[in-house]
């Protein structure tokens, strides 16, 4: 570490396919909204990623929709949505007030609907589309598209045809074939892979013997899932050539660095914002201080620099 005072600042920009982000820190879908502007200036972020939208207005899941765990939480929010019209007429103009690129997360239960929505959100002001393919797919027996390489490739091919915008695929940790799924998304034309969504979990209130979520099961997020998301990031970054965006349990500067060293070009921060709404602002500042102190000229110099363990039995 060099002396912070006397080091030139490091270029914090990262390239995600055709898109350049001012820094590698962005929110994870579903854990971010305009409401966070009460707490800090949202333009310090590398990008803005919105809650997944679906075409039609929907109510979401029954309450309780969240419960907490050791080192994280479960959620079964579902995807409450005011529909595509509200997005176009209200949300898009709001976010146009910022200079950080806007990433729009979309989902659907069928491929037709997915492709149609993809086309409909291909609008000026949208910098990239994040396809949340971790949602139940009605055509595949309720399994998420991203559970299998074949359904992943099918849906991503449709989405690729539906838009010229950069297209990201958000993968799920619930599959047994994460690398095959990632390769399928890449083959179908994804410009980046977000690794990963929540892990399916459950919690029961022993006193009432009821599940602690109205939806019975839900997605686990937070520090508890970090080792799983990091492992997938490492596996997928080695196997694929498109950029990987790490996501899962990131709460500290070292967490963000861990994902980038494992091969991620940028990271998304979700649940940590609930514990500390200022966390992303802190990460942007701390990462930049760290990079300068390390004497880096570009933060991209750390991407994928994981080295082999020394190992040994002595």
């Amino acid at each position: 570490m060099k002396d912070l005072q006397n080091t030139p600042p490091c270029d914090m920009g990262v390239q995600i396919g055709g898109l350049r982000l001012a820094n590698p820190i962005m929110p994870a879908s579903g854990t971010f909204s305009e409401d966070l502007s009460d707490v800090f200036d949202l333009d310090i972020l590398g990008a803005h990623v919105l809650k997944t939208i679906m075409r039609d207005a929907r109510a979401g899941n029954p309450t309780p929709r969240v419960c907490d765990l050791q080192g994280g939480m479960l959620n079964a929010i579902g995807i409450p949505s005011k529909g595509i019209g509200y997005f176009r007429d209200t949300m898009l103009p709001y976010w146009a007030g910022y200079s950080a690129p806007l990433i729009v997360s979309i989902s659907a239960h069928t491929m037709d609907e997915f492709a149609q929505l993809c086309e409909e959100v291909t609008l000026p002001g949208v910098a990239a589309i994040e396809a949340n393919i971790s949602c139940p797919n009605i055509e595949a027996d309720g399994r998420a598209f991203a559970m299998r390489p074949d359904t992943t490739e099918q849906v991503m091919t449709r989405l690729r045809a539906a838009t010229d915008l950069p297209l990201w695929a958000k993968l799920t940790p619930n599959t047994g074939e994460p690398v095959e799924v990632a390769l399928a998304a890449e083959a179908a034309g994804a410009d980046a892979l977000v690794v990963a969504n929540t892990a399916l979990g459950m919690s029961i209130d022993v006193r009432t013997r009821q599940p602690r979520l109205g939806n019975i099961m839900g997605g686990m997020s937070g520090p508890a899932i970090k080792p799983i998301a990091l492992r997938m990031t490492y596996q997928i970054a080695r196997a694929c050539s498109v950029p990987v965006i790490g996501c899962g349990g990131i709460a500290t500067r070292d967490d963000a660095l861990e994902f980038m060293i494992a091969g991620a070009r940028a990271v998304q921060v979700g649940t940590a914002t609930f514990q500390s709404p200022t966390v992303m602002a802190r990460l942007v500042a701390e990462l930049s201080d760290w990079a300068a102190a390390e004497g880096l000229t570009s933060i991209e110099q750390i991407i994928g620099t994981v080295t082999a363990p020394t190992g040994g039995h002595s």
Partner: protein
Amino acid sequence: MTIHPTILSVPAPEGLQPRCAEARTRVVSNTPVNGEYHLLTLDAPAEVLACQPGQFFQLLCPEPEGEHPYLRRPMSIYGYDAEAGQLQFLYKVTGAGTRGLATLKSGDGLNVLGPLGQGFTMPAERKNLLLLARGVGLATLAPLARMAQQQGRRLTAICSARRPELAMSVDLFLSYGAEVIVVHDGDGSATPEALRSVIEAQIAQGRVDAFYTCGSARLLRLLQELGAKHNIPGEVAMEQQMACGLGMCQACVRSFREGDQVVHRRVCREGPVFPISEAIA
């Protein structure tokens, strides 16, 4: 009074004063009151003390031994005093988070996020207020009573409890110049029927321009009925499991009547205070 710095001073957007902040406070005292409750008094920085009655904070509770609360816990503001730099919460120990709060000792640090949500409104024409609550719900109404007194409104507070000695904050309401009526389960005075008579009597005496309540679904239904009958407006502070407390996650929705429709609103953002007539108990 020491003012502790916030954990992070993020540059506020040009011309915009952040509405809430994440701040590190220091515990002045944390004392059991009334058997079931604890009163927590904090030294807090000015930037979190521009509060409205009915708003709440999200507290990052310390971990009690063997338990690991992860999410923040929502707590109504029981008292705030920007001049003294103090903030107060009144809480009931129910689970991991509040057990963690109960371990706090004078001098300990506590990270708070707030003030959050929409507080009570008091249009000028509401000169006679009726406050009705039970248990820790009364905590939420305390700062409202204080503001009402400062603004010279007349106050009646009905405190409902299991036993008369458990009725929270009676002295506090008295000190705010309220007329206090204590009802309790022991003598049947806390049943909806008994309460209905008490309130009808207050209405008959012209002492009720508006209702304020919180917590109990039973009390809410009673006030909805009386409000509709006598055309008396009112507000209720509601609860729901929360994650973010800021409006981002959609965890905390409840259903409300909006004309013919039932809509979802976020308790943390559109609430926690809602018109009694729109709430669904």
